[in-house]
């Protein structure tokens, strides 16, 4: 009880001081109170998620011929409009879309045309618009530009920290399975002292111990099974609901590189999409009332070939789908144009062509949802990107 009272007071104090600091500063001061409540979750689907299966364009005249055995029949998929449907495993997402709390951008790509997973993931996460154009991630730079106005924290969920969070501002991290009692035992104290001059290990251990003690409280000391996508996401979301907890969280899902036997309504990709849907459901449950202040972005490094390959799968392509979900979204339809699957419109006669640069979506969310200043977005978060206009109207005012 005491803890709650104290933290509520702390939130009020933060709000007041941000408003005060915001006067005359570049931040939109009148909104700072609201922005401090906002939550952003970025889910990176690694291996190149097949957008044409996430929201299959079952009404596109070329879809079923291109996709052959992996095409979803209109009656197998969850109908959205005359062109698009959702994959049948994405039931949570479908319900959210019906309620105006999820939207899809069906033809999005990274700034350069790359078909290497690893280079493309780097580009998705470094945000520089160029391969190896930055050694830090765009979310870390977001923390940097917001910091003078309000110090927000980020959480990396998983055993390894992704590039998107690398940078001078250290992110917290958590993964299921920790059982350490960090209550100041002698070994911990001795190791922390030995790490005081180590710029990597010292801060990492200190932050990790802090998060671990929070996790023990959040979860009542019970272990979390990493194999249960929804339960895992529920716990991850609880970090975000702590008044002093992180505002931004990142997690990675892998296994999307479906070169062979991809499946359709069921099968390999369907299993991965069920996990993705479970994670979104878990975030919604775990965030509780704060779901209304949340945006979840689901992105991947590139899409897959428009045509099915010779082994019931798809090879590396170009545009894929970005999913937005969360109670903070403004209801609306498709984000960006649909290029269609006409043979003449395919990129290099093989891939879905992009109609949006993924940075346009990221910038739109950061500006409207997190209150990041437009100049900072154009110059620091996504360097040299003034020509890349943010998508507007994504988040409810």
């Amino acid at each position, binding site marked *: 009880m005491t803890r709650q009272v104290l933290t509520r007071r702390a939130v009020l104090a933060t709000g007041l001081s941000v408003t005060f600091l915001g006067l005359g500063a570049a931040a939109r001061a009148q909104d700072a109170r609201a922005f401090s409540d906002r939550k952003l979750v970025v889910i990176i689907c*690694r*291996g190149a998620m097949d957008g044409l299966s996430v929201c299959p364009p079952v009404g596109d005249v070329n879809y079923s011929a291109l996709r*052959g*055995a992996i095409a979803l029949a209109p009656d197998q998929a969850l109908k959205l409009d005359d062109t698009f449907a959702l994959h049948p495993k994405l039931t949570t997402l479908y319900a959210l879309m019906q309620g105006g709390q999820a939207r899809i951008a069906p033809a999005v790509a990274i700034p350069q045309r790359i*078909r*290497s*997973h*690893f*280079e493309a993931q780097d580009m998705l996460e470094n945000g520089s618009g160029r391969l190896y154009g930055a050694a830090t991630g765009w979310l870390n730079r977001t923390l940097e530009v917001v910091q003078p106005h309000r110090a927000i924290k980020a959480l*990396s969920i*998983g*055993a*390894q*920290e992704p590039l998107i969070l*690398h940078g001078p501002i*250290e*992110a*917290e*991290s*958590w*993964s299921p*399975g*920790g*059982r*350490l009692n*960090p209550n100041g*035992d*002698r*070994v*911990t104290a*001795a*190791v922390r*002292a*030995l*790490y005081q001059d*180590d710029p*990597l*290990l010292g801060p*990492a*251990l*200190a*932050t*990790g*111990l*802090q*998060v*671990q003690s929070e996790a023990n409280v959040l979860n009542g000391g019970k272990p979390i099974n990493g194999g249960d996508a929804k339960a895992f996401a529920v716990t991850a979301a609880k970090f975000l609901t702590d008044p002093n907890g992180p505002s931004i969280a990142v997690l990675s899902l*892998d*296994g999307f*590189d479906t*070169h*062979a036997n991809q499946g359709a309504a069921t099968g390999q990709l369907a299993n991965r999409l069920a996990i993705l849907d479970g994670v979104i459901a878990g975030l919604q449950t775990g965030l509780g009332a704060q779901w209304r202040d949340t945006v979840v972005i689901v992105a991947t490094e590139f899409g897959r070939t428009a045509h*099915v*390959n*010779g*082994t019931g*799968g798809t*090879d*590396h392509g170009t545009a894929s789908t970005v999913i937005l979900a969360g109670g903070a979204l403004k209801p609306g339809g498709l984000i960006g144009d649909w290029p269609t699957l006409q043979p003449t419109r395919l990129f*290099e006669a093989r891939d879905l062509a992009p109609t949006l640069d993924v940075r346009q979506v990221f910038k739109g969310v950061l500006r409207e949802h997190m209150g990041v200043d437009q100049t900072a977005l154009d110059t620091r978060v996504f360097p040299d990107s003034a020509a890349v206009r943010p998508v507007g109207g994504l988040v409810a005012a």
Partner: protein
Amino acid sequence: MTRSDRSLQAAIAASRFGLGALPGEIETAISDPEGWLVAQIQPEGGDIPQALGGGALPSCQDRFALVASCKAAQKAAGQDEILRNAAFKPLNDGFADEIMSRFWLGAVTPSPFRERWALFWANHFSVSANKGQDVMAVVGAFDREAIRPHMFGRFEDLLIASSQHPAMLLYLDQSQSIGPDSPAGLKRRGAGLNENLGREIMELHSLGADAGYTQADVTEFARALTGWSVAQGAVPPDQLGRFVYRANIHEPGPRTIFGRTYPPGQQDQAEAALRAFAASPHTAEHIARKLAIHFVADDPPPSLVARLKRGYLENHGDLAHVARVLIAAPEAWDPQAAKLKTPYEFLISSYRAAGIGPSDPRRDVLNPLSGLGHRPYTAPQPNGWPDQAADWASPDAMVKRLSFAQAFAGAHAPLQDPVQVATAALGARLTPATHTTLQRAETRQEAFAILLMSPEFQRR
């Protein structure tokens, strides 16, 4: 060279080039640290992990037969849920055996540089059990059959061995790729190319993503690779699980790949392309950089990369020569330990410092490594496990290391004086700060946990 120079060199040899010192190892290396490392290079390649009870582990073909019998047992189980679940137990146990055997070798080997060299190449040519049961069954056999025999030979032979091993052919979907204009392709509508292996060979295994090849080169190489497959399904038992070349799915015609034209051929067409990739300066640069990053620094000195590249090119990709160039490179002996041990290296070096081996595969090896995000043979993507400190030093990962160190020390702290244990493990790399902290420890367990977590033990 003075004895104190050699003391530090021996300590570096055991940690940076090795797997952390066994008790007495640094004293063995001290008379000639470089010579101690060079002597671990042998033409026959890496040591082969053995079954824990002694004897050879099952071959790739044995493992294919095991998968077939597990699948048959599952079918025979019908609707009986308990029997169905039990059907794959032999396969799961086999996977645990593979992990335990390789870990055990690392924990006890007196030739730890040889083992590090094997682990490096196994990660370079990564195959992952996450793909499914068929690949899970043979990841260990891949390590023993494709990697270790060739790791001190010519790179081109290693590249071909990897590319023809059933584990790789299944992992990157090559076994199903069919030339659209091949006899089989013309008969089967919808059958066609799968370019997964072709692309990853060019990008990850040989030339590197920045070499300048195009999508058209990848597709051409994928065409050349058609026919490389695995004997599966209804085949004679002596054929099951072997590499097989299938002429009837090979795409006919000449191929132009990365500026070079290959005449029409059979299995030899893709082999010729692999040999050309292996001879390319792009591959030399790619391998040189990866080795320098792995052994020396996340951002390695350009002079070291250049030295390794020259070493690769001047001797036709002879990897024993490259290993000797690495050992002789002055940049590799910087007293500053820039690399953070991976979780796998950290666990192995903990066992070596304690002078013991693990006893239970799941409790002692699989579970702790899974918690640290480094479950063997399950790299999340074809580029293998990451090799930069920042990838392994997240806050959560450091807490998990501390948690492991405390549990391990609680169970296995050696009975000797803690400072003696630390000196045997770290030699001249033991810092005064850690030395003092160890002296203040109240119990052996406390001291040993602190040793394992000390910056100089975590780094190499």
